[in-house]
């Protein structure tokens, strides 16, 4: 997927200022930046939840900029949300099948085989009764469940919005395992996170945003030593 100069303002606030980068199948791309830098907005622009002011998005060579978000989902863009968006009045089976329905709706893509449910559940270490209400899962389990649901759709692009927020260490390992499955199935993963451990360990490349602008891009090692990034997070040091 190629993002070209995406722009979005909300009134006076510039949430995205000519942001461009690419997502490659089988690779994990991190997106970090201080709070309010526009990370979630970018995910909303890519998934189609919010309309862009300017810019274009291409998926597998086709322009998807003007497609509504359900069409992008059918073309293989899957996402999770900062706070899990599950069907709270439905049982677990219905929630799972929402993902399977989408997988069935899409045409068979060569080279992409859908991850198996058992494999995903094992990686997420989730056990449940299909008839149970979704509310019986804990917060961490719900976040993992949402990733499982996204992976069930056999996505080409997987957008993860702070999957580790609110999770304990064991649960974060499960996120890692699920992302590994996504990579194995050749999905292009965009990971928005605050947890530096997760980002630095599993990302192949990272983009850093601040006030909607891209201020750095590169491999983890480069980012960690990048002055602009350090300044954005920690501020400028006082002169002696």
């Amino acid at each position, binding site marked *: 997927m190629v993002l070209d100069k995406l722009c979005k303002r909300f009134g006076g606030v510039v949430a995205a200022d000519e942001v461009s980068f690419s997502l490659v199948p089988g690779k994990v791309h991190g997106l970090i930046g201080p709070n309010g830098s526009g990370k979630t907005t970018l995910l909303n622009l890519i998934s189609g*939840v919010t309309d862009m002011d300017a810019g274009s998005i291409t998926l597998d060579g086709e322009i998807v900029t003007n497609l509504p978000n359900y069409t992008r*989902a059918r073309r293989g863009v899957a996402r999770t949300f900062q706070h899990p968006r599950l069907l*709270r009045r*439905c049982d677990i089976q219905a929630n799972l099948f929402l*993902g399977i*329905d989408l997988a069935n*709706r899409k045409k068979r893509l060569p080279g992409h085989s859908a991850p198996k449910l058992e494999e995903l559940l094992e990686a997420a*270490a989730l056990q449940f009764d299909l008839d149970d209400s979704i509310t*019986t899962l804990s917060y961490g*389990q719900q976040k993992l469940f949402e990733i499982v649901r996204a992976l069930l759709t056999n996505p080409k692009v997987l957008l993860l919005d702070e999957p580790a927020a609110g999770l304990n260490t064991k649960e974060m390992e499960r996120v890692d395992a699920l992302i590994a499955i996504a990579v194995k199935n050749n999905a292009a993963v965009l990971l928005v996170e605050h947890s530096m451990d997760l980002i630095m360990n599993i990302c192949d490349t990272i983009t850093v945003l601040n006030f909607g602008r891209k201020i750095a891009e590169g491999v983890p090692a480069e980012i960690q030593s990048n002055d602009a990034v350090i300044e954005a997070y920690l501020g400028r040091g006082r002169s002696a």
Partner: protein
Amino acid sequence: MITKNKSTRIILLIVALALAALLPYATSNYMLRVLNMMFINYICVLSMFVIFGMTGQMSFAQAGYWGLGAYITAILTTKFHVAPLLALVGSALGTAVFVLLVGLALFRLHGHYFGFASIGVVMTMNGIFQNWTPVTGGANGMGNIPQFGIGGWECNSDMSYFYLLLFVVVAISLITELIHRSSLGRSFMAIRDNEIAAKCMGVNSYFTKNVAYVISGIYCGIAGSLFAFLSSYISATSFIFPQSVMYLVMLMLGGYNSIAGPIIGTTLLALLPEWFRPLQEYILLVYGLGVILLMVVMPDGLIGGGKKIYEHICKRSGGGTGKNQTSNGVG
């Protein structure tokens, strides 16, 4: 619910059906008429179940669509002498088209606004029913509607209508349950519970809402048509906003999240007034207060509340370890 065993459920259903089929021999004609009206209301409550219970879109216009179905049948049979079965189909189709147009115009509205517009729709429809005398008979209503019949067979007694309506009710219930379990039904519920998540999971919410609405409209159209045949006379005073509210209350009483809800809600609200005959004067007061009480105590309806009580009892006697814990160690 009572039991998860599939074959036990089917046996229970067959037994219930058999009992229902024998009912006319055990009750009075008066009771049969009550039950017939109950069946008609049930179909409209199912319509509310589809559009509101499953899809989460509050529509107060269902009584109007019910009326539309009734008037289409009345006009087709009395003015154009169309055969009853064709009139039934005509009602279903006519209502479907009308509801589609309404939905196309109104589903651009989000949240409560759609509900508000539906109030406008039912009030407008009622105004037209009441006043468009050349077509609807205006305040005089329309009478002399022939009995329902197919080919040589004709419904000419309360008992024959009972079986006809029982058949329709069972058929529509099965269809509704099939929808409920299908991917279409899931897309409805996804829109209800989290429209944004639904859209991100590939559901075209505008289109799907219209599908749900048209289905609900067809149910109302059929119910209206059957009502016209059953009563032989229809008048605009039946097709009013409070009637839609009653369907909603029947749905909420039983429970909006499963098909058992409409069954229980409709049955109770149809039969309770009969059991409370001596207190007739106060019945509406009790109804109004009862609705408030219902919302406070059991907003998920009897089915939902019943489930919660059941789970509570299970937890108490089953004890200890829950099943929903992430496994540590292996895996």
